[in-house]
């Protein structure tokens, strides 16, 4: 995929229509997502922000096929992932997830982890998969750590390796759930640069959940602000800052304006979430 293509021509368009998800633990209904709709174009970096516990992970899990949806439908490039007749999407390598807490297999080396996808999908032989994994890890600056286990490297390196493990499968969509939470500012900065570089190279659609508003604007083409539980789309802010972006953009006037706009919307929802919490406890 070339980056010269217009965004709308690229693969990986996600269309989320009227999705509702009700959890039903012990007969008590918890509506996590309510009639939520979102259009994400192919090759777009789409950032999701919203209060804690509002249902963001639930939405991501529905796209990935980790659980069923109660109502509505999700399409990927006009093909049905899940809908009324098929409540749970099939898991597949076209949608790769990078998990909130990291899920590299601790019993495989970084290289084996990355080679795993193509090997089990049989798109590559075991040997080719290993050598391609080695090349891709080296490209991501991890060439010296191929034979290390995830427990032996820093969390930043592990996260980069996990993104490489996802990308080696040529996914249409990369689903990231707060991947850089709990990282220090410096590591985060390096992570952002490396993700943006990856994006510029591959043009993969990115669905990225975060709590960090600056991160959302710095990385995103669009920032979707969702409401407190149940999750609905509240507002979409378009980020028209040209790419490639560098850290200096964060101090620009445009950036500050967008930040204020997003902040206002999120704050409103956070207050609502807080009050709802107080009501629940009362």
């Amino acid at each position, binding site marked *: 995929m070339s980056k010269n293509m217009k965004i709308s021509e690229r693969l990986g368009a996600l269309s989320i229509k009227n999705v509702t998800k009700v959890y039903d633990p012990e007969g008590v209904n918890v509506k996590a997502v309510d009639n939520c709709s979102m259009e994400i174009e192919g090759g777009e970096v789409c950032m999701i922000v919203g209060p804690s516990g509002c249902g963001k992970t639930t939405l991501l899990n529905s796209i990935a096929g980790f659980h069923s949806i109660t109502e509505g439908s999700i399409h990927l490039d006009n093909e049905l992932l899940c809908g009324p007749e098929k409540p749970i999407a099939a*898991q597949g390598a076209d949608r790769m*997830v990078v998990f909130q807490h990291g899920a590299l297999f601790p019993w495989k080396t970084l290289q084996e982890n990355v080679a795993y996808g193509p090997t089990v999908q049989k798109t590559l032989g075991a040997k080719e998969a290993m050598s391609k994994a080695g090349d891709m890890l080296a490209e991501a600056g991890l060439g010296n*750590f191929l034979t290390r286990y995830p427990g032996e490297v820093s969390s930043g390196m592990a996260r980069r390796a996990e993104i490489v493990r996802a990308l080696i499968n040529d996914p249409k969509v990369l689903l990231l759930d707060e991947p850089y939470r709990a990282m220090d500012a410096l590591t985060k900065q390096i992570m952002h640069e490396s993700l943006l570089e990856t994006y510029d190279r591959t043009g993969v659609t990115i669905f990225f959940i975060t709590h960090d508003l600056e991160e959302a604007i710095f990385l995103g083409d669009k920032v979707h602000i969702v409401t407190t539980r149940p999750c609905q789309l509240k507002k979409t802010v378009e980020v028209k800052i040209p790419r490639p972006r560098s850290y200096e953009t964060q101090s620009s006037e445009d950036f500050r304006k967008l930040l204020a706009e997003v902040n206002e919307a999120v704050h409103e929802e956070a207050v609502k979430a807080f009050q709802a919490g107080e009501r629940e406890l009362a």
Partner: protein
Amino acid sequence: MSASSQATNGQNKIAKPQGFDLLIYRVKKYFGRLDPYLTILGIGLWLFTYWVLCEGLQVWRFTKLPGPVAVSKDWFSTTPFQGISIFTAEYYDHIAVSCRRILIAFGIATALGVPLGLFMGWSRSIRDYIFPLIEVLRPIPILAWVPLSILLLPGFEWPVLFLATLASFFVTTLNAMLGVDSIDEEYFRAAGCLGSSRWDVFMNVVVPGALPFIFTGLQISIGVAWFSLVAAEMVSGDLGLGYLIVDAYMNNVTVPMVIAMITLGFIGYFSSALVRMLGNKLMAWHVKELNQQGR
């Protein structure tokens, strides 16, 4: 990126001690700590108490027991008074028989228990079939199985093997199952995303993920195997260390009894150390992870 790779290049150039040097380094490090001295002191204290009770002060019923001096005299003598020493073939016959039985019993228990436990952890329906049954049989003490096994199985050998296998089988199965339960759900999800078949998941997530629990279980299970083997040999045996203990007791020769007990202790210790070593070999990732956490 380039900065980090430079730094690691530098790290790699520091020569690590190898071979003999590594051994010397480890020995030095070991004796540089307090642990070995405490261990030696502990053993010394224990032996001294044993000697004081039996031979030094000859306290009350301890006179019936041979003390450390009497035991070691016979144990290392070419002409032992009471028939058993490191120079008699009989001693090694008993050891060999017990070890062979452990090998068979522990082998069968592991070969059956690990896969069964893994499948029970992996598949809800297999667990529903088998788990309740195992949970009912497991609490029955091994000695309660003795009459049944003698009635059911021919000769001396089969009941003994059966009893030694049974207890260790339960431990291994349960631990393997709990090992699967302990695996984080996210690894299954990641494997699913990456396009694994159900069998891929079993081989690449279930088996390695349960391994730490399995080996903890195997260490307990080999101890349990020794425990039930000796119990079985004492009740229904013709040879073996357990048999030697009762036989010596019946014939009023107490030195071989003590020798057999101490021998059991050492062999038991070595067998679980062997299992632990094998585990560490198979789980380099786990060992390194624990090292990283400073354990």
